């Protein structure tokens, strides 16, 4: 009796695994607004598709833990793995173990360092990071020009986490744009890190306000810092119509700040789109099909003019 039950249950397990495509997902961390939207994008697609199971794990920003998760996925026989790398310089080891086991691997959101040497059944889905900072800085520049400040404008720059590639890139983008002839009229009074955090940005802005310097624009590497700056400026009695504030991410909080007339522009990175792209690529690779190894989801500029189409996206 016991044996038949065991055999039957084994048979069921085998039959389901034969039908179902199992995809293991290792996210850098769960506790992140953007990555949560991305993760939900994957989950939603999987829920809507019969015969596909996803197992999503949290690497808690720990490189070693992430590699363990990948090894565990391989050991439990998944058909494909999606990785949102904790550290993009640690991806070679992940590619190696997946390639050795013959399991397809898709990187999402953060470009792996071994992009040029990815095996055939591995791919990257993300956005070109250079776009976001450039879009933001250029839009701020244009808006300042439109306001007639092209004879000289002063700005502050909020930098994200200094060890984070996106913060370095976005900061460089701002420098590059205000180095162009068209935007040369903008000078940076100061640039400091606020670690992508709202509270730190709020305190930093208040510190800057205490110097009494006049300024026309705020560049922030992300929306949380832009919102922190706005909160500090409002508390300091600054007229928000006189300052151009640009963020990146188009979070719900930021879009509402834009609706209130405080935030001027932000850049939308399609988190759900990246999640969906990674899911599709993983599924195709699992079925033995080929995919483009670098799948780019474009950034999009969000201003008061087109905000309504973004309100429900993040």
């Amino acid at each position: 009796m016991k044996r038949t039950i065991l055999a039957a249950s084994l048979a069921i397990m085998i039959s389901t695994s034969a039908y179902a495509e199992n995809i293991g997902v290792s996210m850098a961390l769960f506790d992140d607004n953007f990555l949560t939207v991305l993760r939900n994008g994957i989950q939603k697609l999987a829920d809507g598709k019969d015969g596909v199971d996803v197992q999503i794990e949290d690497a808690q920003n720990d490189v070693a833990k992430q590699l363990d998760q990948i090894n565990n996925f391989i050991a439990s026989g998944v058909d494909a793995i999606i990785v949102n790398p904790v550290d993009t310089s640690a991806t070679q080891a992940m590619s190696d173990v997946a390639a050795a086991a013959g399991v397809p691997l898709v990187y999402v959101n953060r470009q792996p360092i071994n992009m040029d040497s990815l095996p055939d059944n591995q791919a990257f889905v993300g956005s070109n990071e250079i776009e976001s900072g450039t879009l933001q800085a250029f839009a701020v520049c244009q808006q300042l020009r439109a306001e007639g400040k092209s004879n000289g404008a002063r700005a502050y720059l909020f930098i994200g986490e200094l060890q984070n590639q996106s913060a370095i890139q976005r900061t460089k983008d701002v420098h590059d744009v205000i180095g162009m002839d068209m935007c040369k009229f903008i000078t940076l009074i100061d640039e400091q890190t606020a670690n992508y955090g709202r509270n730190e940005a709020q305190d930093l802005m208040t510190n800057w306000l205490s110097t009494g310097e006049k300024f026309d624009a705020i560049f922030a590497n992300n929306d949380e810092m832009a919102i922190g700056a706005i909160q500090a400026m409002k508390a300091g009695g600054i007229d928000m119509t006189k300052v151009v504030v640009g963020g990146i991410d188009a979070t719900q909080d930021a879009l509402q700040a834009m609706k209130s007339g405080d935030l001027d522009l932000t850049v939308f990175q399609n988190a759900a789109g990246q999640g969906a792209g990674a899911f599709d690529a993983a599924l195709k690779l699992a079925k033995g099909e080929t995919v483009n190894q670098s799948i780019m989801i474009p950034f999009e500029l969000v201003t008061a003019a087109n905000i309504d189409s973004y309100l429900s996206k993040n």
Partner: protein
Amino acid sequence: MSDTSQGTGGLSFDQSKRSWPNEVNVFGALIIIIMIFEILGATIMGQSFLLDSHDRFDTIFNEARLKIIILQVSIIGIIAIGVTQVIITGGIDLSSGAIVGVTAMIAMSFGQTELVNGNPNPKAIFGPAFMDLPILVPIIVGLIVGIIAGGINGVLIAYTRIPPFIATLGMMVTARGAAKWWSKGSPISFPTENYASIGSGMTPVFVFAFLAILFHFVLKYTVYGKHTYAIGSNEDGARMAGINVNRHKVLVYVIAGGLASIAAIVFSSKNLTAQAGMGLVYELDAIAMAVIGGVSLSGGRGSIMGTVIGALIFGVIISGFTFLRLDAYYQEMVKGMIIVAAVVLDQWRQRRAAMKS
């Protein structure tokens, strides 16, 4: 088990042998640091650090800078008031930053408003029945969370006798997990106007100042305070003197948890959002403030006033570096060195005082 050379409580503590209270030294350090920034400001920036260089204010001071110096350390300062008491008993609390995270998440979800710019709240955690609640609801819920977490810390430490380091480390990991679990990692935003007012403007400073003064007196003049010092100086002695050490320890950790949750409520209101990562490593900043302020990690010694001055030193350093437009890297390095220097100086002073007697 008890090492009587540690701590200076009981017989070895003799007020008359100390030339002046330790707080005076810490305050002196604060003044020296301010003077350094004044000199650097005059030479590099051509303007004063704390004085009004451009005639922007009614007084001779740069009021905006004075305000931000205190404002930016108020929230961690509130936590540090609780941490100071824990350290005086000879314990440690590593969980306060994580308690801030979980309390902020849970309290904020009871403090949300239904409509944002005329649209339904996009970050709503509960249905409309739990939105636009009276302000007391999120405050009480938040306090309960902090008190429960602190109570668990206290009970574990007092009754299972595990080291405070381990008990609160466990709470740190657990509470941070709970903070992420509460909304599955997604931030909680858009509070009611009332909730938003708790941390607006200079309110965090007033809350910090009120709590600091309150607990300064509580520690100095009440039985609670005397027991706190007694346990930290000599736990066995305190027990033999008839103090219910276990019950008192639970109370101390409950108060620390409660203060962390007050910090969380003020913090989430100030930022108009609650995020699971909030308060990350705040416990270490709070401990550092206490240590700089002369609170001894071996227990029995220290005061709220010292911790407050320690907090101000932090605030002056942050504002000073921004004032000089120096990068944050240097700020962190200097902060670390000051923490160590404070303890080295204090040890040296204690040894000298002991030799003199």
